């Protein structure tokens, strides 16, 4: 509780801007989204707008559907064969379930960073160049530029610039995670989904990724799932509290942590359950 309160100060500094949150154009508009894993109703009537060029945090106890929800946004959840969905997800005026809208196209615009760093067993350079390459960019000079720009964007250029052609597996976990972020940036997405991107990292690496998120939101809309409420308070503009597959509360980060309107949110952020 104490720490959360302390962190409000950081959040409040940005509060001036917060008034615009509701007005900011939405990257995603989710309506009546329901999702089942077989018989298990994992997402219930989700209504959710994701503002552009802001950081939206999702918090909630384990198993409440946070990962499931962000994986619906780039349709990765459909890799699970037993998944059924209903409802509507509008990304930039297009229904992502529209048969004319290919998942590949969607995922080119909506990138994702996973909980566990998952670089390819290739060189650092090849990891970053992979995305542009599969989308048909072959020019070596262009690729070189993309690699440098993405690595700089992910704040890891200085650490790896002399070993671009070494295997990415030789890097530390924190470095690997920033490589994965760089890999995501390389195809210049519009939205970046992050599923607990720092949960496998040490505090210093975590801090680096958090600073990076702050930097990235200038150009990207970011959705971040986190178990760490301080982290949500530090880096997000809006926060949603999920519980049992429902959105209990979704509002400005500062409001949610200082003045939650739902009793369950209050219980969760004060550590009384969850």
């Amino acid at each position, binding site marked *: 509780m104490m720490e959360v309160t302390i962190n409000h100060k950081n959040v409040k500094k940005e509060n001036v801007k917060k008034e615009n949150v509701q007005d900011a154009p939405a990257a995603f508009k989710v309506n009546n989204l329901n999702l089942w894993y077989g018989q298990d109703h994992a997402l219930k009537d989700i209504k959710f707008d994701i503002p552009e060029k802001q950081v939206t945090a999702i918090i909630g106890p384990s198993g409440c559907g946070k990962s499931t929800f962000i994986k619906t946004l780039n349709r990765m959840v459909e890799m699970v064969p037993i998944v059924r969905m209903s409802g509507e997800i509008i990304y930039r005026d297009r229904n992502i379930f529209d048969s004319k809208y290919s998942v*590949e196209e969607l995922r080119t615009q909506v990138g994702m960073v*996973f909980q566990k760093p998952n670089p390819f067993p290739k060189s650092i350079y090849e990891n970053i160049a992979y995305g542009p*390459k599969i989308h048909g960019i072959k020019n070596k000079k262009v690729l070189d530029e993309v690699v440098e720009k993405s690595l700089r964007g992910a704040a890891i250029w200085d650490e790896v610039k002399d070993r671009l052609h070494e295997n990415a597996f030789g890097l530390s976990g924190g470095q690997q995670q920033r490589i994965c972020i760089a890999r995501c940036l390389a195809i210049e997405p519009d939205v970046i989904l992050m599923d607990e991107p720092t949960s496998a990292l040490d505090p210093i690496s975590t801090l680096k990724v958090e600073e990076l998120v702050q930097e990235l939101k200038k150009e990207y809309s970011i959705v971040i799932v986190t178990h760490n409420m301080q982290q949500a308070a530090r880096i997000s503009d809006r926060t949603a509290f999920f519980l049992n597959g429902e959105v209990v509360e979704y509002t400005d980060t500062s409001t949610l942590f200082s003045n939650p309107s739902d009793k369950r949110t209050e219980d969760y952020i004060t550590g009384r359950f969850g």
Partner: protein
Amino acid sequence: MDGNRNNSSSIRQMIKDNKSKRSRSALTEKTMPKLFLACAIISILTTVGIVFTLLAETFTFFERVSIVEFVTNKHWFPFTGEEHADYGIIALVAGTLTVTAIAMAVAIPVGLAAAIYLSEYASAKTRKIIKPILEVLAGVPTIVYGFFALTFVTPLLKEFIPTLKIFNALSPGIVVGIMIIPMIASLSEDAMNAVPNSMREGALALGATKFEVAIKVVLPAALSGVIASFVLGISRAIGETMIVTIAGGSRPTSDINVTESIQTMTAYIVQVSQGDAGFGTTIYYSIYAVGMTLFLFTLIMNLLAQFISRRFREEY
């Protein structure tokens, strides 16, 4: 809570009791390893024995035929009387390599495609059905494949290639390939299955198609295992005997023409073993020299497969 404690203390008691029982069977603990060691030694000794016999008889052969002639002469005519006989292994090696090349041309693309399908596209249910079928196919006796080559594939090919001889290199080559497909498919699939799913997700999340994930992420990541399966396949094709004996003919030649009859190293050994080459004749010793050559080929292939899968093992 209480029940729990009772439970765990009784488990503790049971373990204690069992432990005392176990010490009574300490004899087993002592003798079993010795038995295992004995079995291991027996299997090693037999292998050494076989190689030794092979070497000894091969030396006898090279006392009669110079090793230079053996590796440089392009003709293999052992049955023309001691004086005129030609012992040029090149002719038999050419037959073996021809069949192997044809077999791999069939087995690698089909086996790899099957592996990609199984590991990347098939549902868990399909995989559960198909994998055991592949393993059963790998256990079909090769004589069956041999008859299949002679009585089905050869006549079928003759429809398209009228000049095809009854005994030829093409038909057994294709059938050896068919025989090896399950092996390559199964081993490659194992290697591709070992690639963690997080890597596929990473690529899919970048907008890669399933095909791009298979070809540009999974296959490279599994490459060592896949190549090792090819090399083992080659080794298997080189050593394959029944199919080539039945459908390949017995005409050793260095002039490769896949529609003509050939003879492989293995088929030659069968021919001599079946015939009445008397003990002590040069022909008799020649099968050991050929056997030695065959052994070297497959040994090199197996070592290569091991080297590749060790050297290029990916640490996920």
